[in-house]
């Protein structure tokens, strides 16, 4: 009922700047390369993995591609962290991705809403607790992947400073975390931005930069689109 009323007068707000759009596009490209080259190694016994590996020119080429994509991913993550760190430090924008007490309250409220104990879904800030959850999982998971990835790429250098057992441990982290992030993307992010009834067939805001004002958010039109 609520959604229908709102849809009568669609109001668009600027949600993402060109910088964010490009950043997300690069991330998609790198994620696909990393997932294909990484998961085909993780599930090397599967026929499809072996076909992919052979099509890409063998396991050495697959690892080379994975490493190159990994380096670009590292660069992307570093610029993201530095850029946002400076935004927060120099107060050029609001730290909209920081997790606050309100997020916990929103999450609890929505649980109640889903269970039928509340009539309305919660009014979130610019980014909902769900978006923040996935953002931090990707960012922190990404950093974890970068560290463990470099350990696995340079095991000899790593064991100059770390005990040998850290290599298989790094491998366990890298391979499991990759799977976790992949599942998170496959199950949640794809649902939330594509199959979720509110946005089906696709939430284009990350590609166009504009979003419909939704009842779940109290988002204001943010001039610079940074966040």
């Amino acid at each position: 009922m609520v959604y229908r009323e709102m849809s009568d007068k669609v109001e668009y707000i600027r949600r993402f700047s060109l910088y964010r759009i490009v950043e997300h596009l690069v991330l998609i490209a790198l994620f696909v390369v990393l997932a294909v080259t990484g998961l085909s190694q993780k599930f090397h016994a599967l026929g499809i993995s072996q076909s992919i590996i052979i099509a890409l020119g063998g396991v050495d080429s697959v690892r080379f591609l994975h490493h190159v994509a990994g380096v670009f991913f590292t660069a992307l993550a570093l610029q993201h962290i530095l850029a946002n760190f400076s935004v927060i430090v120099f107060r050029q924008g609001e730290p909209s991705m920081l997790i606050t007490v309100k997020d916990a309250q929103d999450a609890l409220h929505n649980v109640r809403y889903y269970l039928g104990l509340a009539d309305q879904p919660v009014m979130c800030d610019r980014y909902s607790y769900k978006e923040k959850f996935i953002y931090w999982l990707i960012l922190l998971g990404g950093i974890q992947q970068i560290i463990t990835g470099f350990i696995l790429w340079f095991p000899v250098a790593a064991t100059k400073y770390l005990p040998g057992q850290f290599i298989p441990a790094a491998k366990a982290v890298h391979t499991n975390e990759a799977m976790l992030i992949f599942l998170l993307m496959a199950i949640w992010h794809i649902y939330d931005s594509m199959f979720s009834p509110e946005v089906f067939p696709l939430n284009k805001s990350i590609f166009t930069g504009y979003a419909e004002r939704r009842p779940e958010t109290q988002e204001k039109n943010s001039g610079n689109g940074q966040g």
Partner: protein
Amino acid sequence: MRVRAYMIGVVLLACLMLPGAGAFAQDGAGEQEKKQCLKCHGEQGSVKKFPDGDFVSTYVDAHALDMSVHRSLRCTSCHKEFTNQRHPDRAFRNKLQFRIKESHGCRDCHAEGTIKSRAIHEALFKKEAAGEAVVCTNCHSAHAVTHIAGGNVSKSEEKYCLRCHASEKKMVFRSGESVSTRVKLAELQGSPHRNVGCSDCHFGFSSEEHPRRQFRSERQYRLSSSEICRRCHFDMYTKAAEGIHYAMLSVGKLEAPTCIDCHGGHAISSLGNNRLAVVQKCKTCHSEVYEVYARSVHGGALFKENNKDVPICTDCHSSHGIKDPSLPEFHDTIPDTCSKCHSNAVLMGKYGLSTEVVKTYLTDFHGVTLGLYQKEQKESPERYRPDRPMAVCTDCHGTHGIAAVSGAGVQALKKTLLKRCQTCHRNATENFPDAWLSHYKPSLTNAPLVFIVEQFYKIMMPLMVVGLLFQVFLHIWRYLVNR
């Protein structure tokens, strides 16, 4: 004549009485026919003369005929031009022409395809195609023909050849070396070739021919003799031709072994069942490897306990198609070689060894990479260019001098491990070998850090997936309710 007419009458009567009897069943008529023929041909002394003065005896040994495989045939089954009434006087230029003509009769029953299927006949057909005469009876004899397996061919030939070759004589080579031409009958009879005739191997030699051959040296003679074997053992010869020993020979390294160097000549043995003998054979040239092997866990068990489970040279290197062990193709198949025994739970159970060693290797970096390399090589050999060799079993455990990995062996192996790692990982430090969990599965006592990480994700992953799916489900459910 009266007798002859009487006999014909008897034969005809017998034929009438047994109308169903086939040509190959020795019936009364056949017996009668034989008797009649043997009346003359059973007498020694009569001969058939040829224009060149040569002659052939017309005597047929009745006893030999009765013992032959053709005992159920009638005389006229082979000698088709002859009947009880007809005995044509045939003219031949010489004895050879006579024998060739008679041999043609054999092909009426023994189809070419059947004869050709025997490797030993292959060369004869080539000879025949080249226009040379091939006479079946040279080897199989005529009336006394027996099953090859029965050995009568070889027996008569043996007797013939051994008239000279039983005594000590020498064959001298141009180099001044010599070999004895003596053949010990006992050796021959004890060999798997006891039913093979002399000329089956010594092709070109027969009671009529004994070509004189000249060899530069004894080695040259032995190499030439080895070529004999391929006529029957073509499969083994082909395998050997792909092996390192043959490759050495082909580049002039004549010391490389051929068939008879390992298997022997007249006292030939297959070696297959005598595992100790195989090792001793290889020792002839590879004595250094033998010494190291003898001290290893495998060699020790072979020599001390005569253990039949431990691998001998040929189990890893194969016997005929021996690959160059320095080639990457050989190196890369080592895990497969070792796993033939080390992934066999029954065999390993006997010695309290775990089959996990193969699994843990194959699921780790080196094993996975090697497996993918092999896949690539198989799928697109033209594009296969591996970056670097992958460590296999022997790179850590050693090859011939492999030691038991228990007690003191573990410490000894660990001590050398860093050096072994440094073969590929040049700047590896002391910590590095611990990156390999020594075939152990992570547990709280072995690699606890790895174990904890794995357990964490084992719990986290399903929790997260279920949580997310639950969230998706609730979201859709609530949306539908609101509608």
